[in-house]
């Protein structure tokens, strides 16, 4: 899981990678919103969700290995919702043949699974289209408050550092305990309050000192990478926003 997210950054090789980083982030966010807005209970909504997720994954050129891994991750995260169907069927209102109750019970898990899979793939595809440096440049170029950009960038950067730190703790525990993979995972979890957390707090303290020393908070990070908007970027964002509007229209129609 850790390696999957870690290795995914910047691994995409599709045409979307040629867009400006901020266009990739904005388009990814708009498509994510479109996938959430489209209802999973209508044919048009399902088609739009499937199209948006598939098209963006292909446009970002997500590697096949990552597609398989994220599909497995999505299955593990979302398919168990279908286990709720028997419970929901009992609570539902069955039709003359009992089918209506089953179908209506299926609707809620189906909604979670479809939206979950789409959201996971849209996020992962956007991540694969961005290297860590692209992400920073993209966030800086977006019209967000300075504090927000600084915090978001540090969250992503320090998360990567924390993953590395967790890896070191896990390796140390594995070596010193001589336990297997499952045993190590359990020991790492048990060590969180006594080992990992104090280390992370200490690190956070030092990082904040370094940020203060280097003048991070007072600097407008846009000096790190201004970019000029291009027609292709505007077109990509426009298309994504158009799909979001279409999803909203389908949702509105479905509600009425």
């Amino acid at each position, binding site marked *: 899981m850790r390696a999957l997210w870690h290795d995914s950054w910047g691994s995409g090789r599709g045409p979307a990678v040629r867009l400006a980083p901020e266009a990739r982030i904005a388009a990814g966010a708009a498509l994510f919103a479109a996938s959430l807005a489209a209802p999973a209970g209508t044919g048009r909504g399902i088609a739009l969700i499937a199209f948006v997720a598939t098209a963006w994954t292909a446009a970002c050129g997500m590697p096949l290995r990552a597609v398989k891994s994220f599909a497995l991750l999505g299955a593990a995260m979302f398919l168990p919702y279908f286990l709720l169907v028997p419970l929901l069927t009992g609570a539902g209102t069955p039709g003359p043949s009992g089918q209506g109750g089953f179908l209506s019970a299926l609707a809620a898990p189906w909604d979670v699974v479809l939206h979950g899979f789409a959201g996971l793939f849209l996020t992962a595809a956007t991540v694969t289209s961005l290297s860590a*440096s692209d992400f920073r440049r993209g966030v800086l170029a977006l019209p967000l408050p300075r504090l927000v950009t600084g915090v978001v960038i540090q969250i992503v950067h320090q998360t*990567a*550092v924390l993953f590395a730190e967790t890896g070191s703790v896990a390796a140390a525990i594995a070596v010193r305990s001589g336990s297997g993979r499952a045993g190590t995972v359990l020991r790492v979890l048990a060590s969180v309050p006594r080992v990992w957390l104090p280390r992370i707090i200490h*690190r956070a303290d030092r990082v904040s000192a370094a940020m203060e*020393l280097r*003048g991070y908070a*007072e600097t407008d990070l846009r*000096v790190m990478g201004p970019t000029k908007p291009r027609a292709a970027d505007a077109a990509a964002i426009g298309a994504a926003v158009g799909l979001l509007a279409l999803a909203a229209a389908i949702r509105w129609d479905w509600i009425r």
Partner: protein
Amino acid sequence: MSVAAVLAFDRVTVRYEPGSRPVLEGVSFTLDRGERAALVGLNGSGKTTLLMAAVGLAGHEGLILVDGIPVRRRTAGQLRQKTGFLFNVPEDQILFPIAREDAAFGLLRRGVERTEAYRRAESMLAELGVGEVAGQPALHLSHGQKQRVALAGALVTGPPLLLLDEPSAGLDPPGRLSLARLLGRLDAAMLVATHDLDFAARFCRRFIVLAEGRISYDGPDASVVSQAWGTEA
């Protein structure tokens, strides 16, 4: 206090908690412009705390001046222009994903144009022997490479005072040697906290020994330190 002093400590005491035992007690010394001093002492003797106090990251009693500027919370911005700081764990101070970007940050925040800032950062990285990693993710570098990237970020703006916390830690022997040579060529005054006397002796002519928060020796003779530690050859 010397007029030429770029760093001056006058009866400085640091406590982490009010009323607790001081980590530094009554520390006084000055460091002249261009002077290089090794700050040596056993673990827990207060070396890192002294460096932190010099940049206002540890509250203190007494007076600390950096290039004539008193170290106070409100002078932090001015102090930043005067000092380059190297933490003993380089990951702590690398704030940007790509080595070149991190090394260039100090220049960019001073308004240097981006292409020029990156060029100068790459040049500094090359001078430190890690020019080939300029475009690489800093997180994927070895400890020694990260140490040099962090050092490049501290050196690139050419501050008059460098405060280096264990700069040779984790470096292989050739790396230590080349770093010592590089530091020996710099014009900046520097205070180098280290346990590594051989490394420090290559470019420092002054040794300030800390023991239990006090200065127990301040002079040119490194052998005094090894005698005190019982590590003489």
